[in-house]
């Protein structure tokens, strides 16, 4: 059936929203100079990718992939693979966030600034003196 572009986007509402969130996270990560904002942007970007991945496995009208009183028929449950992958992904983004926050604290202790470009300029000057 030939579905127009916008209608198709509305049918895949989860993927569209996750791509828009990916774009917002990507822009925050690129354009904001404050380090904590950048880390939040990175988190938004990661969760958006996981939303994109997990909405692939969703099948309307099917239940959670936990075997309930012996029913093991494929048409009863959704696809378990994406939720397994996203479970791994969430813990990856937690450890990356913790690492970057620790770096932010150490950089603020030394340069008293959260602005990445100011830190780079101060670091360059500090090395020249």
């Amino acid at each position, binding site marked *: 059936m030939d579905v127009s572009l916008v209608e198709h986007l509305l049918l895949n509402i989860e993927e569209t929203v996750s791509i828009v969130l*990916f774009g917002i*996270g*990507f822009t925050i*990560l*690129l354009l904001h100079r404050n*380090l904590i904002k*950048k880390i939040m942007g*990175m988190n938004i*970007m*990661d969760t958006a*990718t996981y939303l*994109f*991945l997990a909405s*692939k496995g969703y099948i309307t009208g099917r239940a959670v992939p936990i075997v309930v009183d012996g029913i093991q028929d494929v048409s009863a449950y959704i696809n378990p*693979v*994406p939720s397994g*992958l996203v479970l*791994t*992904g969430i813990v*990856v983004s937690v*450890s*990356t966030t913790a*690492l*970057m926050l620790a*770096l*932010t604290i*150490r*950089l603020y202790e*030394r*340069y008293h600034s959260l602005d*990445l470009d100011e*830190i*780079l300029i*101060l*670091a360059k000057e*500090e*090395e020249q003196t």
Partner: protein
Amino acid sequence: MSFVQNFPFFSIILAMFSGIVSSVLSGKKARNLSLAMIVVTTALSAGTLAFCLKTGQSYTYMMGHFPAPWGNEIRAGVLEGVTAVLFGVVMFLSVAGGMTHTAEDVEDGKLNLFYIMIDLMLSSLLALVYTNDLFTAYVFVEINTIAGCGLIMIRQKGRSMSAAIRYMIMSQLGSGLFLIGLSLLYDVTGHLLMSPAKESVELLVASGSYRLPLLVIMAVVSVGLAIKSGLYPFHYWIPDTYGYATPTGSAVLSGLVSKGYIFLLIKIFYRVIGYENLVGAQMINVLYLFGVAGMVMGSVHAIQETDTRRMIAYSSVAQIGYIYMGIGLGTTAGMVAAVFHIFAHSATKALLFISAVGLYEVSGDRKDFVSLRGAAYRNPLAGIGFAVGALSMVGFPMLSGFISKLLFATSAFDSPTKMLPTLFVLAVSTTLNAIYFLRLVITLYSRRREGDKPLPPNPVKKSSRGLKFAIVCFIGLNLVLGMASQPIVQAITDGLAMFE
């Protein structure tokens, strides 16, 4: 299922296990464990290589009780064996070469944490080389990124921490794009393992459906891994990262980490998208253009640098441009040249960084040209090592750089449209390389002038045994890659043939 076939699995698990165990050991014990583990892992990889050469084809190894599309699997072949052996050798020599400086730079309470990162980086590199599953590749790409960031920031100086956070931000951009590419591929093909994914990609290409998503997958995955390996327009984090890490850290980061991502990209090109579909798409030319731009602009930036470590870092931007230009040529000869240049560059770059350490030691730990003048007379072995590395980079016969430039030139003849630009850019980039590398060699071997700033009066430090051993072995490795290159090139061609 002969016992030798377990070796790739053993090497990955052993590297990870020694990383976990050295969390409770003291600094020195952790270092010895790490060195011993790297030796054993290289021996295991050599065993795998021998087995694959004997049988002449690659084999897949089921991780767990369930066959391919359900459980994970790793796949070992001739090309994976050669890469694993070379990565092990370069890692061992870099760790041995930078031992004393690591002990000075890192507080002794945290020295074992440094060796945890070295172990886990080796295990993630081996996993990237051997894996046959895309999401496992993503998890080990993340381990590689965090370990690399740890290697940069372990000096805890202002400059290295700001370099580390910039490296993390750029790598997270790359990982985000790579993960979006993975999810698109999973959605369109339904498989995450490379071989079944390839069959469904073949079906899709044949039936002509989902043409746009396949193109976007190729673009996003290539751009994501190009950002992580520092290809030209995304190279901005490289000079600070390689310039301000510990000597071992910068040797490992420049020699091995970016090569792991490029190897993964080649594997995805061959095993998931299929080489003929790739050549058909326009993505190859985009990589070619980025590579060519990197070759020229990397050297131009290197000429303007006054700090020698940043200059070497910019030269590795140019060399990564070479590799992507080789991939972008679109011919199998071009791919063979690119893979050989991965080996040649990791050996030469690690030699340059390690021997540069020997030169800085004797010139008052200052890195600019004036204070380095005559350093080669004060530390002759480091001087020779740097000269050999510089000549190999410029393409002096008998050294590895010459062979890779030769391979690039001959492979350029196969693709008629790209022949002229390739040869022209090869010539320009080699002359630019010659300018800034030979300039530094001339400075090293020219006498000190009376007008120069006096060196700090600290006694001329004798470079440690590990540093001397590492420089000699790296020179040997370069000579082996240079002179005995025929068997290696043959192994690469066979490996690429059985790569599908």
